[in-house]
C-alpha cells in the first residue's frame, strides 16, 4: 500500500511542477465557477481535503485507523467558536490556540490509544469520537447544545473580512494548499519513510531505530492538530456550528474520502474529498439515500480497487490497453 520511495532530483522536480500546476488550477477555478452556490461547494471541498489529508497521514502513511476524527474537527470548531464569541478573542489567535490544545490532547490520549491495533484501535477511536459528540451536545452552557453556536466572527486580514464566497474560497484554499505542501514534504522526508516503515512492519521499523510508538503518537497528534485548524476555519466561514456536523457519520465520510482517493496519496485525498463533497450535489433527488452510496462505494473500493482512485484508474487503463493489445496480437 505504501508508495515506493522516490528519490533523485527528477522526481522532486516533477512533484514540484505537479503541485504548482495544481495550485494554479485552484487559483483560477473561481474564474470559471461564478455564482455563490458553486463557490460555497468548493469551499467545502477545500475543508474536506484538509481533513482527508490529516486522516490520510495517520491511516495511509502510518497505517493507524481513526474513526473519531470528526471529534477533533469539532473540537477545533467549538474551541475557536467559544473563544471568539464568549471571550471575544481575535480569531487569528483563537485558531492556533485551539490547534495547540487539540494537538496536545491528542498527544496525551494517543499513548494509550495507539497501543491498540487494528479492530481495537478502530473501536477505541470510535468511542472517543462519540464521547466528544456527546460533550458537544451536553455542555450547552458553552456550546449551545443541539441548537448550536451562532454569531462566530469571520476572519479578517488587513481590513479585509473573509465574508463572501469568493473571499472564503481563497482563504480556505490558501490553507488547504499549505497543508498539501506540508503533507507532500512530510511524506517524502525521513519522517515519511519512517511512517511507511511502521506501516509495513512495526517490529522491523523498531529494529532499524525508528521509535515506532512515539512516532505513531506524534502523527496522531499532528493529524488532530490539522483537523482542528480545519474545524476553526469551518467555524469562521460558516459562523454557525452545531453538533450534527461532527458526529460518527462524518468520521465515516472522512474515512470514505481517504479510502476512495487512495491510502497514502495526498492528491488522492483531494480526489476523494472532491468526489464525496460533490456527490450529494449531483445526486440532488436522492438526498437521504446518499448513505447507501457511501456504504456501497466503501465496499466496492476495498474489494476491487484497494489502492483507491489514484492507483485504480491508471491500472484500469493499463489493463484495458493491455487487453486491446492482446487481441491485436492474436
Amino acid at each position: 500500500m505504501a508508495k515506493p520511495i522516490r528519490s533523485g532530483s527528477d522526481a522532486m522536480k516533477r512533484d514540484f511542477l505537479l503541485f504548482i500546476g495544481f495550485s494554479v488550477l485552484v487559483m483560477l477555478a473561481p474564474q470559471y465557477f461564478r455564482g455563490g452556490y458553486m463557490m460555497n461547494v468548493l469551499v467545502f471541498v477545500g475543508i474536506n481535503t484538509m481533513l482527508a489529508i490529516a486522516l490520510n497521514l495517520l491511516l495511509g502513511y502510518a497505517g493507524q485507523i481513526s474513526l473519531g476524527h470528526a471529534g477533533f474537527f469539532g473540537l477545533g470548531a467549538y474551541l475557536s467558536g467559544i473563544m471568539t464569541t464568549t471571550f471575544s478573542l481575535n480569531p487569528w489567535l483563537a485558531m492556533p490556540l485551539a490547534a495547540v490544545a487539540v494537538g496536545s490532547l491528542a498527544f496525551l490520549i494517543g499513548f494509550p490509544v495507539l497501543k491498540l491495533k487494528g479492530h481495537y484501535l478502530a473501536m477505541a477511536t470510535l468511542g472517543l469520537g462519540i464521547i466528544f459528540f456527546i460533550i458537544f451536545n451536553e455542555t450547552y452552557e458553552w456550546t449551545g447544545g443541539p441548537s448550536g453556536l451562532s454569531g462566530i466572527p469571520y476572519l479578517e486580514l488587513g481590513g479585509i473580512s473573509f465574508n463572501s464566497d469568493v473571499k472564503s474560497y481563497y482563504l480556505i484554499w490558501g490553507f488547504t494548499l499549505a497543508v498539501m505542501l506540508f503533507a507532500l514534504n512530510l511524506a517524502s522526508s525521513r519522517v515519511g519513510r519512517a511512517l511507511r516503515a511502521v506501516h509495513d512492519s512495526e517490529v522491523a521499523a523498531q529494529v532499524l531505530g525508528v521509535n515506532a510508538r512515539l512516532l505513531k503518537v506524534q502523527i496522531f497528534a499532528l493529524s488532530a492538530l490539522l483537523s482542528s485548524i480545519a474545524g476553526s476555519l469551518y467555524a469562521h466561514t460558516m459562523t454557525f456550528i452545531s453538533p450534527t456536523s461532527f458526529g460518527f457519520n462524518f468520521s465515516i465520510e472522512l474515512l470514505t474520502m481517504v479510502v476512495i482517493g487512495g491510502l497514502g496519496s495526498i492528491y488522492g485525498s483531494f480526489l476523494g474529498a472532491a468526489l464525496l463533497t460533490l456527490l450529494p450535489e449531483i445526486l440532488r433527488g436522492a438526498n437521504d439515500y446518499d448513505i447507501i452510496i457511501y456504504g456501497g462505494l466503501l465496499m466496492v473500493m476495498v474489494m476491487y480497487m484497494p489502492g483507491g482512485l489514484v492507483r485504480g484508474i491508471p491500472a484500469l487503463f493499463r489493463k484495458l490497453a493491455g487487453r486491446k493489445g492482446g487481441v491485436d496480437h492474436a
Partner: protein
Amino acid sequence: MQFDQILQYTLSGLSTGAIYALIGIGFSIIYNATGIINFAQGEFVMLGGLLTMSCLTVLKLPLWAAIPCAIAVSTLVGILFERLAIRPLRQPTPINLVIITIGGSILLRGLAMLVWGKDTHSVPPFSGDAPIAIGGATILPQHLWILAITLIIIFINKIYFYHTISGKAMRACSYNRRAAGLVGIDVKRMVLFSFIISSAMGAVAGIIVAPLTMTAYDVGVMLGLKGFCAAIIGGMSSGLSTVIGGLILGVLESLGAGLISSGYKDAIAFIILLLILFFRPQGLFGKADSERV
C-alpha cells in the same frame, strides 16, 4: 437515594444488559472464528425488530410465526453479507475488514431506510403490558421475556459449543485456525456458520427489545456499539463473561442515567470501553496472558 429507586434502575438495567449480552456474544462468535470485528453486527438487531414489525403488519402473521420468519430473513442477510463481502476480499488486512464491515453496515442501514423510512415503528409486547410489582419496583412482562429468552439462548449456545461436532470445530478454529484446517475442519464453512449464528442472535436481540424501546432503521449503531462494549468487558468470550459484561454495562448505564444525568447515559458505555481497552484489554475477568492484536 431511595432503595426502591435503585432497585427499579437495577431491574431495568438488567434487561437492557441482557440485550447487550446477546449482541456482544454475536461479536465474540465472529471474532473468535475469524478474527474480524463485525461492525455490521448492530444492523442485524435493527433487521430483527423491523422485519418482525413487517411480518406482523404487512404479512399479518401471528407473533409466533413472525419471529422465526424475521430471524430467518436476517440470517439470510448475514449469509449474503459473508458470501458477497467478506469471502471475496482479496486483501483481508484488519483495516480493510474494518472498512468493509463499516461499508456493509452503512449499506444495510441505508437499505432499511429505503424500505421502512425514517419513522420509528413499534412492535406489540409478547404478552400484554400489565406491570408486575417486585419489591418497591415494577417491571413489565416484556422484561421477563427478555431475561428468559436470553437465558435460553445462552444455554443453547453452551450446548452447541461444547456438545456438538460443529460447535467443537468452531472452538478449534478460535484457538488456531491453521491447526483446525490441518485436522480437517472446513474453516471457511465455520466462518459462514459464525456469521449465521451471530446474525440470528442479533436478530433475536432486536426482536425481544423492540416492544420496549420501539425500533427504527438507525437503532443498530448504538446497540451494536454497546454490545461490542459488553464483549470487550467479557474479554471477547462467547460465554458467561460477556453475559456478565452486558449485565454490568446495562446496570451501570441505567443507574448512571437515573442518578447522575440522562444526557451522558451513552457516554458511560464508551468511557467503560476505553478504560477496559487501555487497562485490561484481556477483559475484566481474563488472565493477562495474551496480547490483543
